[in-house]
């Protein structure tokens, strides 16, 4: 289920870390500014403000890309390209406070392009499936049973269409609210729900629960 949000921030990151304190120390007063204020400064070509935005949201972007892809492959390229694109198009962002979700949508689009490309290559018999790197997804502290479940889930998710895969991952792995899923995936709420339901139905049918001892 989605987590309750106490801030109006649209997205929440699970498993990431906040860099706000670190950036505040490093960048002085600029590090204390809110996203909308930073975006306004970036529009005036303030490089420091953009660096603060980058360091504040890089972790979110990296984790988002890895979890949708199921691997850390080219993830630095994706995040690099996403921030570069964000920098070039910052004038198109109407609400500076939604920088995080806007950036997330850029990351999702970049990942989706790669997923589709891999899928098309696979369909044409030119490449194997998109490899899932369990070590990239699961933390070192995760137990073997949890890792096995994650491996199974990602193996199933891998067979979904990129759009369904993205929607389901954002909802059930990243634990975003439905509205945030729609925003990140660049589709309507109804479409996001439809994709999630379709993916969920497939996973529910094919997921095999771990063996448990029957009750005596």
């Amino acid at each position, binding site marked *: 289920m989605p987590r309750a949000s106490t801030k109006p921030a649209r997205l929440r990151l699970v498993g990431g870390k906040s860099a706000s304190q670190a950036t505040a120390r490093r960048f002085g007063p600029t590090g204390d500014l809110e996203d909308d204020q930073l975006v306004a400064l970036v529009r005036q070509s303030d490089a420091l403000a953009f660096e603060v935005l980058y360091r504040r949201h890089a*972790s979110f972007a990296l984790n988002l890309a890895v979890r949708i892809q199921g691997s850390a492959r080219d993830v630095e390229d994706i995040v690099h390209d996403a921030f570069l694109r964000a920098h070039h198009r910052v004038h198109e962002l109407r609400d500076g406070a939604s920088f995080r979700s806007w950036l997330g949508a850029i990351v999702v689009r970049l990942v989706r392009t790669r997923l589709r490309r891999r899928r098309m290559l696979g369909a044409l018999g030119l490449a194997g499936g998109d490899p899932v790197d369990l070590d990239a997804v699961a933390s*070192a502290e995760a137990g073997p049973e949890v890792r096995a479940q994650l491996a199974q889930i990602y193996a199933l998710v891998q067979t979904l269409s990129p759009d369904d895969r993205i929607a389901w991952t954002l909802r059930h792995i990243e634990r975003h609210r439905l509205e945030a899923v729609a925003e990140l995936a660049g589709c309507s709420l109804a479409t996001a729900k439809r994709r999630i339901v379709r993916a969920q139905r497939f996973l529910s049918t094919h997921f095999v629960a771990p063996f448990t001892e029957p009750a005596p």
Partner: protein
Amino acid sequence: MSEPKLPELASALRDHGSDERIERVWQRLESDLAVAAPRPRAALWWAPAAMVIVFGAGVLVGAHWRAQEVAGSVVPVLAEPWTSAEAAGTPQAALRPAAVAEPQHPKRERKLPVLDGTEEPPVEAVPPIVEVPVAPALPPVPQSVSPEWERLANEGDPSGAYNALEKQGGFDAALGRASAEQLMTLYEIGLAVGHRPKAVQALRQVVERYPADENAADAAYRLGSLLDKAGDKAGAEKAFAAYRRLSPKGDFVEDALARQFDSAVERGDVPAARQYADQYAKDFPKGRRLSAIKKQLAKLSGAPQAAESVPEAEDTVDDEAEEVSAPRKP
């Protein structure tokens, strides 16, 4: 159906936001940003002035137009309704034909006299009645519920989906009212059950009816591949051209252009092949197919010595691009 019991993901997922990685990406980003500084927005001080000028010009043109209409003695017929019965017995009847001179640019409503039901309407005001064959009404398609065939296809049962399609009016009927996404599903169904022509039809529909849809470029490329395999080289060439047009910066642009060249060669169209080869050399000077294309072109032109002397291009593209450019003859 029960949901899969997922583990506690917050603790099970790895965090990739390490300081080293963030710093590494920033170094690249910083150097790129230094090269391409953001362009300041163009000042828009002239916009209000331009709007005023455009508005003023519109007013002048409108006034001029109105003046022309008045000079042409255009009488507002609808403002003064009359019937043929009235017209026959009033002094105005004698004047009316001259007064109701046909304007140079008559407005449609001015041709419609007000009728009281007693007179014969003017012939020109009544369009001829033509018997139009009425197509049989299609069964209503619920918008909120997926058709059975789509549900089955999404569940991984293309044969079942195809059978359901046959029961619900057939594949072709579904093509006519499918969305772009549904057409892609129909394409997959057609391909899965071995009806390639139907798969081709579905892809064509996506390209022709939904060129702005995100599936269109993908559909065009797949269409080119299918037609190429079916031996329709001209069709494949057109489909690859459509892909390049729909996705000029797409991942498969280089490959599509090379395959256009291949199709032109297969068709024996040397001028077209030369054109594609020139385009390829211009757009992809380090393209992996460049040397092969040059060789083939030289061979077609009857210059084997030239073909021998064309140096091999270095493979400078990445792994994925190499896979894309790999020869894929049927």
